[in-house]
């Protein structure tokens, strides 16, 4: 197990470096720097500004300085666009918002999706099963950018029950629609995966043996069937996490929740490379780290993987 973990960490680190180098290199080679405006600056001024932000250094040196800043002081540098704000300020402002609705969505998708899938599999071909299958098929075509406008239309414009945007310190009525919009399609995928995996497990020999021994259904399902059932679900958690991180861009732009997605997309429009780089680093390393944890979890559940 330990050697598996070490090997897995050994993949994660070059991945993160690769992501950083790609993004850094792309931004360096970009035609038009962040300070190219419609009114061209005098060359001396431009040179001064570039020196201030360290843009006159060779690329590898900039990258090393940048990494050093993050690792030693957790400093992502200044924003190119907002002169009075650092990338740290932006993260401090946006990240708690994203974290709140992101974590709720993720947990909700796993719990509700998993429960629905297991219930559907246990009562295969009942109305509950048909209901679950119907929902999962329908939700496949409802990604966040389709779900969000529909929710706003129904619950804000027609029924007037929920506010159509804003965050308001994360009160529940501002959280509820972002969470539903973000989690629905993943909930559906998890339900579908759990259902088909559970059905397969329930047909296997060791379950038949357990039944033959006269074990009650409750024990069979919770003690014997659950562990092999969740394996494919666990391996789906990585992609689901990535999807939700990127989905937060949509959520922030539709619901004006003010999470990091809002700043990322804004930075993309303004060519604010410092903010993009900082958020890429932050969200990218979270994703890579999460994938690593999922893989280790998978290997822990299923020892065959460790080989």
């Amino acid at each position, binding site marked *: 197990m330990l050697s598996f973990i070490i090997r897995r960490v050994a*993949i994660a680190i070059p*991945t993160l470096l690769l992501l950083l180098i*790609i993004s850094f290199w792309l931004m360096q080679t970009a035609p038009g720097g962040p300070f190219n405006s419609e009114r061209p600056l005098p060359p001396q001024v431009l040179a001064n500004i570039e020196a201030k932000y360290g843009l006159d250094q060779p690329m590898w040196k900039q990258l090393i300085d940048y990494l050093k800043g993050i690792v030693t002081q957790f400093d992502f540098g200044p924003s190119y666009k907002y002169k009075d704000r650092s990338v740290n300020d932006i993260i401090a402002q946006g990240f708690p918002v994203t974290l709140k609705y992101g974590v709720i969505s993720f947990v909700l998708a796993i719990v509700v999706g998993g429960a629905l899938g297991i219930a559907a599999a246990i009562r295969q071909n009942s109305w509950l099963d048909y209901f679950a299958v119907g929902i999962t098929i329908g939700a496949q075509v409802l990604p966040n950018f389709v779900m969000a*406008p529909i929710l706003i239309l129904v619950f804000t414009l027609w029924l007037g029950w929920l506010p159509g945007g804003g965050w308001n310190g994360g009160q529940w009525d501002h959280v509820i629609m972002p969470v539903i919009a973000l989690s629905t399609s993943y909930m559906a995928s998890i339900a579908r995966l759990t259902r088909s995996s559970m059905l397969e497990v329930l047909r296997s020999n060791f379950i038949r043996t357990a039944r033959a021994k006269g074990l009650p259904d409750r024990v069979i399902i919770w003690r014997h069937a659950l562990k092999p059932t969740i394996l494919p679900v666990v391996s789906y958690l990585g992609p689901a996490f990535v999807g939700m991180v990127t989905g937060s861009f949509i959520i922030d732009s539709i619901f004006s929740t003010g999470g990091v997605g809002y700043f990322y997309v804004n930075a993309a*429009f303004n060519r604010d490379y410092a903010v993009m780089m900082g958020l*890429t680093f932050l969200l990218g390393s979270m994703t*890579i780290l999460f994938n690593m944890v999922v893989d280790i979890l998978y290997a822990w559940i299923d020892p065959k993987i460790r080989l």
Partner: protein
Amino acid sequence: MSNGLTTLNPQQPKTAAMAERMAEVKGRSLWADARARFLRNKAAMISVVVLGAVFVFAFLGHLLTPYDNETIDWNVLGKVKELGKPSLENGHYFGYDDSGRDLFARVVQGTQVSLMVGVIGAAIAVIVGTIYGAVAGYLGGRIDSVMMRFVDIAMSVPYMFVLILLLVVFGRSIEMIFVGIGLTAWLDMSRIVRGQTLSIKNKEFIEAAVATGVPSFTIIRRHVVPNLLGVVVVYATLLVPQMILTESFISFLGLGVQEPLTSWGALISEGTSTMNYGTLWQLFFPLAFFVVTIFAFFFIGDGLRDALDPKDR
């Protein structure tokens, strides 16, 4: 069967029945089997029809309307809610969009762009992924592990960041979307193909080909790739809606295709931002096309998987 026949005219039909029976047992190829299974799948067949209709709409839809997608009707501008409703009389079947342009023509164009991105994106992914996976799987050994380790690493890079970065750095254009999507979408494909290749590689007919001195790349081209086709076809059909989703996602954020070009994602985004004004048709039409098409692709993909991979049944 013969019992029923004796009550009929005893001489003639018996031989006819025999002949029929002979015809019935005539060998059927795997593909014919698969086709029969697919044709029996109602959801998939309906989806094929629907999808065909969407394609026809995309490429012939402009013939149905006298309006193009760029002309602004200045009389409607600012009064879209009152004057811009969808109507059959004035030929604006889907109404006007927020800038006073004909929405029907816009949806036709958006459908074109989205389908094109989906199909071409998936095609790039399939071609690159199949070649890469087949080569890695067939050659095996150190080359395989280096090639697949690269795929592992590239796959765990969150690709949406790279895609957005590319679009920001090199400008937001449809060509860049192709490049960005093409860069990442083949990775999954290559893994699947490699796995299949590994199992095909050890079959006797490959051994025979090796024994007769056929060069590696000819074996890959002539023997490995054709046997992968089933998996590739299924995966490609499921890849198209994924490509459409990715493109729509990017265009929804405004980072994808740019005016005057449009796509489903861009249209849905416009519809979302204008629904406060009560012009709901702007959201409804692109959304309906998007949802129906994605549905159709998923059903066809599922149908093909059931048809080509009978062991799941």
